[in-house]
């Protein structure tokens, strides 16, 4: 039976933890709101970009743009795995990493060599521990996602792709579905060939472009294709950011709830112990008086 003093100390300690979790929840909520706005603002740009690229690529003019060309023999695959830098956000990072492990294992069964490009400290730490030899470059310390971060990552994987160091680039990240749900997702970002696109025209009859391109389609694609890749990565970073804050918010909320439960249980215990002490003292006094 812990003493009164012990229980009191315990309650204070839990209360302090509660202050921390509550503050973290509020900070995460504020950051989540900002992250959601960032996603909202990026959407029109990304949608337009994707639409235009689809139109141009579907017309068959992209034949000479190396970023749009699928390679016959995929010998080397680069995998970008995006997580957050910080923990204390529930299973958020674990879910992505689990998915990544599974996807990587599946790809390795097909035998291509594989390199990993972790983005975010949690991902970097995990892969440095498990697959240190395969980590080629890490991107960490992104406090707040900016377009420039996406540009940097895009440039790195593009250079590797163009130099022949990799034949395919996969991107694994958390998709931000809602505050309650973040779903890990794996997509191929290079080469930029629609994997299963029902809207794609049948081979052999390229769709007519509804417009003129200046100076010509090839040079437009030279600008457009890398940009589309940047946008894809930017989107993943934003999703990851929003998901992280959402996950932290929900997990801190339940942590706060748990501390409340714990405090009430401890308070009950404290009062019982106090009552017992009083009763004991009374009995002692009474029996002392009787003895006289």
């Amino acid at each position, binding site marked *: 039976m812990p003493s009164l003093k012990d229980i009191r100390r315990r309650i204070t300690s839990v209360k302090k933890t509660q202050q921390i979790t509550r503050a973290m929840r509020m900070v995460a909520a504020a950051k989540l709101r900002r992250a959601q706005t*960032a996603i*909202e*603002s*990026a959407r*029109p*740009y*990304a949608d*337009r*970009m994707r639409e*235009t690229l689809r139109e*141009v690529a579907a017309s068959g003019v992209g034949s000479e743009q190396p970023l749009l060309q699928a390679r016959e023999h995929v010998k080397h695959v680069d995998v970008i795995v995006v997580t957050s830098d910080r923990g204390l956000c529930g299973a958020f990072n674990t879910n992505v990493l689990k998915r990544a492990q599974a996807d990587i294992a599946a790809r390795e069964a097909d035998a291509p060599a594989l390199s990993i490009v972790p983005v975010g400290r949690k991902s970097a730490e995990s892969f440095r521990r498990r697959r240190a030899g395969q980590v080629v470059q890490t991107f960490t310390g992104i406090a707040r996602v900016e*377009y420039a971060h*996406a540009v940097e990552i895009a*440039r790195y994987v593009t250079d590797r792709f163009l130099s022949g160091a990799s034949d395919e680039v996969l991107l694994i990240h958390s998709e931000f579905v809602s505050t309650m749900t973040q779903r890990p997702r794996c997509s191929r970002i290079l080469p930029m060939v629609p994997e299963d696109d029902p809207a794609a025209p049948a081979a052999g009859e390229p769709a007519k472009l*509804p*417009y*003129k*391109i*200046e*100076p010509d389609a090839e*040079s*437009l694609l030279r*600008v*457009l294709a890398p*940009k589309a890749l*940047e*946008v894809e990565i*930017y989107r993943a970073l934003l999703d990851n950011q929003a998901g992280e804050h959402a996950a932290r918010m929900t997990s801190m909320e339940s942590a706060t709830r748990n501390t409340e439960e714990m405090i009430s249980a401890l308070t009950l215990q404290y009062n019982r112990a106090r009552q017992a002490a009083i009763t004991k003292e009374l009995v002692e006094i009474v029996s002392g008086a009787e003895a006289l």
Partner: protein
Amino acid sequence: MALQLTIVTPEGPRYEGPVDSVVVPGTEGDFGVLPGHERFLAPIRIGELEVRSGNDPSCRWAAVGGGFADVNGERVVLLVDTCEFAADIDEARAERARARAEQELEHKKTARADQFNFRVEEAALQRAVIRIQVSKKKGMAA
């Protein structure tokens, strides 16, 4: 008939509204767009964008980053990395950015550092110079 201009950047929409005409810095040279232009796509370089409209003189000049333009009759959509209107540009900041970029470039040139960073700095310098140019036109707006 007015031309509907939309400028979007990855950070969000920057402008939306009817204008009389725009002059866009294309990679192959500046081009003007008036209402009823034929549909076409063109890449944009880092440069100055001129927006002409009778009712909104504050938005005459803007510094834009690279991207591309989608022109479609009565509608112009500019997808650019950055877009800042003259009124929003902090000239002192742009001046500092230019000084820093110049210094970096000088340093990279002597250190014979990698081409990659050189190009990044070069673009940064270009953007800073354009920003300064554009912000000097603030007064001309009215």
